């Protein structure tokens, strides 16, 4: 994943991209859909996590290409949000759009706007287990066990549906 691709994703977020968790899971799901972002992921406590994504985000903030805002969250920590400053937007307008990302614009916008962050987290986790091998049922059960959730819970079932839609795109591709 390069700077241009990440900037484009942030541009597609409604308003600003709220939470690093959202960014992590959106990039994972886009990659699972077949988008060639070339990012390494490992399963962490909160689902698939990429140090590459975390690092690129911070590097772009450091270079002034992204702006970061923090707000207190319910856990007692901080949530980090990101938006593009005007000079970065101007650069984006002057450059050719990243070809690899173009066909995933619809999916990216949908995931970036998903109101239920837990659903994204679970969907990424279900997709992770499914890609390890096994049926969707097994993947949802594994994800539910991993996340200490009810495998029949509404969010988990919706997450499986979202993961199915995402991976179906990779099969089409």
């Amino acid at each position: 994943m390069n700077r241009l691709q990440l900037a484009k994703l942030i541009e597609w977020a409604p308003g600003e991209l709220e939470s690093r968790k959202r960014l992590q899971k959106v990039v994972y799901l886009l990659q699972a859909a077949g988008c060639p972002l070339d990012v390494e992921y490992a399963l962490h406590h909160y689902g698939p996590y990429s140090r590459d994504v975390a690092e690129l985000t911070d590097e772009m903030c450091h270079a002034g290409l992204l702006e970061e805002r923090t707000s207190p969250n319910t856990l007692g920590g901080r949530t980090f949000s990101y938006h593009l400053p005007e000079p970065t937007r101007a650069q984006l307008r002057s450059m050719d759009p990243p070809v690899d990302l173009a066909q995933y614009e619809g999916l990216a916008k949908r995931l970036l706007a998903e109101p239920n962050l837990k659903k994204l987290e679970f969907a990424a986790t279900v997709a992770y287990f499914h890609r390890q091998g096994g049926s969707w049922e097994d993947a949802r059960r594994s994800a539910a066990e991993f996340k200490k959730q009810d495998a029949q819970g509404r969010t988990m079932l919706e997450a499986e549906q979202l993961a199915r839609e995402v991976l179906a795109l990779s099969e089409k591709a």
Partner: protein
Amino acid sequence: MASKIFRDPLYNYISIDLKRDGWLVELLDCPEVQRLRRIHQLGVSEVTYPGASHTRFAHTLGVLHLMQRMHERIEQICSEESVKMCRARLLAAAVLHDVGHGPFSHLFEPCLGIDHEVWSVRVIRESGGPVHEVLRRLDPMLPDAVASLVDKNDHQLPQWQKFLLSSQLDVDRMDYLRRDSLFTGSGYGHFDWYRLINTIELHDGDENQRDVVWSEKAKFAIEEYIFARYYMYQNVYLHKTTRGFEKLLEAMWARAKKLRSNGDDVDLVPAIRGFCDAQDPSIDQYLTIEEYTVLQQIQQWRDHADGPLSDLARRFLNRDRFAMIESPPSSDDLDDGYEAWEEALKETVRKAGYSEPDVYCLPDQLKGKYNQPYFPEKELDEQSAQNAIRLKTAGESEPVEISELLPRLRPVTREHRDRYRYYIPRDIRDAAEQLKSRWKR
């Protein structure tokens, strides 16, 4: 009480109680584990640090020793039966976590296209293999449990058990930082490991959700550890000479692969030929490839008819190093500018008469994550021992990441720029430096 004692330069006595843990000696005596005596812990670092001749086997013993101490500590703070029950698997995983390493440790992995963890898991699971049998005799479930701990993609066991072996502060890193420091003579890599082991805590949740954290009194020992890690990366692991020979070895192997795919005979030694020809190489085929095998191969290539292949082989054997040139700093634009710089440098190499820039202009992208000691995740809702070192502090319900507690660590924990280095023949260093001085992003 009878014990098996290993004298070790870091811990002096590494002791195994034969009555309780005689099986560990059997495990250490397995051929797959003994093979680690013939793998250098630091790959080709000897070209830079002549003392760095220590082996994966010595490191394995060190990790075992630390895991013994770590389990004692965990038993003190958590009396649950499950903690007692996991002892054998933790100690076995400590012994076997590196059993799948190939010649020269990590650096040869891209040459053979392998991941040592995958081979470690295969060795452990291989029914009938010596390692598998020792584990199975102790407990038929043990091979699967140990493989699960070693396999980063396996999440069947409670995560805190995996974190002891592999996380931001684990027994593996605690041993290799100090051991590599000692044997390189670099003088870095010191920290109060005893304090770290004796201040570890398990953070709430049920058995499967527990995280590994530290008590607040460990903060200075953790600070020392973070700096030790930083200095060791800067001075030892990413040393320009060592990295240069690593890249040279990779380029040599890539050249041989290219020739072979074009139908040329690259005169492979039998062990390497057997591995490369196999559709699905067996464990025996893999484990037969040792550093001696690779060195014999390189000796043969020194006289090969292909000029670049024989030149790289000669350079490797004679320590005839390439020059290193750092790329100009990346731009602060969306296009970081590395691609254009690399193309221009390759053109300089071509113009100097080196017709194969893939062989004579070797990029080395040092990702930020390797440049820095420790890069914590900032958002609490994404943190665990895998991406953050956290401490329990008075008045906070959730553990606090160390650089939040000690903000003076931030300049090193949040320095994250990638660095691009290039290795080129020494006779064109001046031309490359001139290109760099004129280069504008």
